[in-house]
């Protein structure tokens, strides 16, 4: 039997500065109707005040290590799960190397993941658990991200807004053999045809010099057409079946804070178990990419609504490209 991998600490580093969605729509020249406002269910989002994505990630990493009581020199691997562009172009550069240097994780190596929407956090979690379970010399992992929105690109798909993006960083410390919340299993499923539903066309090889295309674009027609709810249901059921559990055994579900509409669409497949903290965090923070999971998990733990031994399901449709679900036993 494999030794379980537990969550020693989780931290969100959020900029103190907040902007209202109303202001952001106005700034980006988009009309905000009552119908759109209701569909989004987002009031405000945190916005950086000059900090870089990697500096926020370093701050989150330091705080997570301190909270876990882990000396940075004990970290064996740093796993990065950002979604938005970093200071320099990825994959030649990745903030995880800077995090390694800045937090003093001298003996660790780094791994970063691309291309999975908010599910990138679940990919990182899955691989983190596998690395710790299968390599005797790896015991402690630091998962980290920092996501900063492209200026003028906070409203995703202005013609028919889908979400509003905030800036955030988060970090999670995993340890093999740790007690407390244990990561039980993860199920992941990709739909390759959707690789370009949500992407940034400009600034890379296909459109190297078109600054106008340097923005997160969503193909709304294909996004709507993809059966993301059914896919996520299938992924979650597969995961629970493998663990010998049913949805009734799950105390709570955390999912990304994309919109009120998204939460409403997902609630029925989870029997209404998407935690209330997801809705409240969505209203006050908007969508923070993979950090949504960490923020919602922390809020759920602090809310006192889950008890030791309860199962929590973390699930995301990954904007069509990657559906994923992780099972955590608190």
């Amino acid at each position: 039997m494999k030794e379980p991998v537990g969550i020693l600490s989780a931290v969100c580093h959020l900029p103190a500065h907040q902007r209202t969605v109303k202001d952001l729509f106005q700034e980006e020249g988009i009309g905000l109707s009552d119908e759109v406002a209701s569909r989004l269910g987002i009031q405000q989002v945190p916005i950086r005040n000059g900090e870089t994505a990697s500096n926020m990630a370093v701050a989150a990493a330091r705080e997570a290590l301190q909270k876990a009581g882990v000396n940075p020199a004990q970290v064996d691997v740093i796993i990065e799960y950002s979604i938005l562009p970093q200071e320099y172009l990825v994959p030649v550069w990745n903030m995880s190397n800077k995090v390694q240097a800045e937090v003093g994780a001298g003996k660790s190596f780094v791994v970063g993941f691309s291309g999975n929407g908010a599910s990138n956090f679940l990919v990182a979690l899955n691989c983190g658990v596998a690395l710790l379970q299968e390599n005797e010399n790896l015991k402690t992992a630091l998962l980290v991200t920092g996501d900063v929105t492209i200026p003028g690109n906070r409203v995703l798909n202005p013609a028919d807004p889908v979400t509003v993006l905030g800036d955030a960083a988060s970090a999670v410390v995993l340890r093999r053999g740790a007690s407390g919340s244990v990561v039980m299993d993860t199920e992941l499923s990709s739909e390759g045809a959707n690789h370009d539903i949500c992407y940034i066309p400009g600034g890379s090889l296909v459109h190297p010099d078109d600054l106008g295309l340097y923005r997160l674009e969503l193909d709304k027609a294909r996004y709507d057409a993809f059966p993301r709810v059914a896919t996520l249901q299938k992924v979650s059921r597969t995961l629970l079946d493998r663990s010998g559990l049913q949805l009734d055994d799950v105390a709570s579900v955390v999912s990304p804070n994309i919109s009120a509409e998204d939460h409403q669409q997902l609630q029925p497949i989870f029997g209404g178990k998407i935690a209330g903290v997801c809705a409240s965090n969505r209203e006050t923070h908007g969508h923070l990419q993979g950090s949504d999971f960490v923020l919602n998990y922390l809020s759920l733990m602090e809310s006192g609504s889950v008890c030791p031994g309860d199962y929590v399901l973390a699930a995301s449709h990954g904007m069509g490209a990657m559906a994923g679900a992780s099972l955590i036993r608190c």
Partner: protein
Amino acid sequence: MNTNIGIFAAEYYLPPKKKALSDIFRDEEMPAEPLAASVDFKKDIGIEAVHVAGDETAASLAINAAKRAIAHSGIDPQEIDFIIDFTSIPEDYVAPTWSAAGLVQREVGATRAFATAINTGGCASYQTTLKVACSLLSANERYQTALLIAGDKTPEFNHNYYPITVVSDGGSAVILKKNVERRRILGVEVATLGRLHDIWVIPGIHNRDPKDIGGKFPKWLHVCGDIARFNKELIPMNLFMFRKVMLGVLKQVGKKFEDVSYFIYPTFSAWDLKAFCEAFKVPKEKIFLDGLHHGHLQETDMVLDYVDAINAGRIKDGDLVMLTTNGAGFSWGATLVQH
């Protein structure tokens, strides 16, 4: 870790068009900073020409390699449980938002797989990816088959990676399988020096100086190396880190340096290969040197040289093969494969 995971198939794809070294030096800017090593970059590099993708996309290079690997292996694409893209330079669209993994999944018909990308390690991303992929295969009973892919296309005028090498375009693909008896991956060791993270970068459209647009040496998407720090901070650590990862992986699996039958090392340059061989007393017959005629292919060097070494009969049944490289970030990796 399960040590019955092996390299079931490995293939590469190189675009047919080539560009001569003299034309690269004619068309591209050469930094003025001298190289610490006592070599003449232009004369001593040992590379005569590189492959250029032209109209082919970076993803198409990976897809071609993946299709070759699948055909060679004889597997049904629906057997593939996961795909990992380990490309180490910018792709068709901006990362980390996008990777070619999903597109490859679609094109090869790997409908059961999940597709992701590892975006760290530079040219050592293959080692990082092998470590993650082997761990995933070993940890999850349901995973039996993995497809690792890469496709690298440099901008037309960025083949000169002074002071390291000149780079070629190409793709590679590797199929890993559980419960194999040959080409078993015994262990992988990876190490990174995070403080060197900003020695080798590509600024990106959001922080690029407009004066770099156009002119004799257009610089969109071009790598920028801090040569002074390269000389002062990287060079002195390089062989130490190679030693660390190679001894690390040997210790993992209870082997000695003398047990290694053959080495696969990146084809950065003739002088770099010579320095590695001298430092670790590796005789010429125990290391693959022929790859220089392709130029340097980023992380794909590890796959291409391995495939060519097997095809040339340099690696034989029973051989213990060490694949080792370094890459931007900076990272070093070493893998032991038992033939």
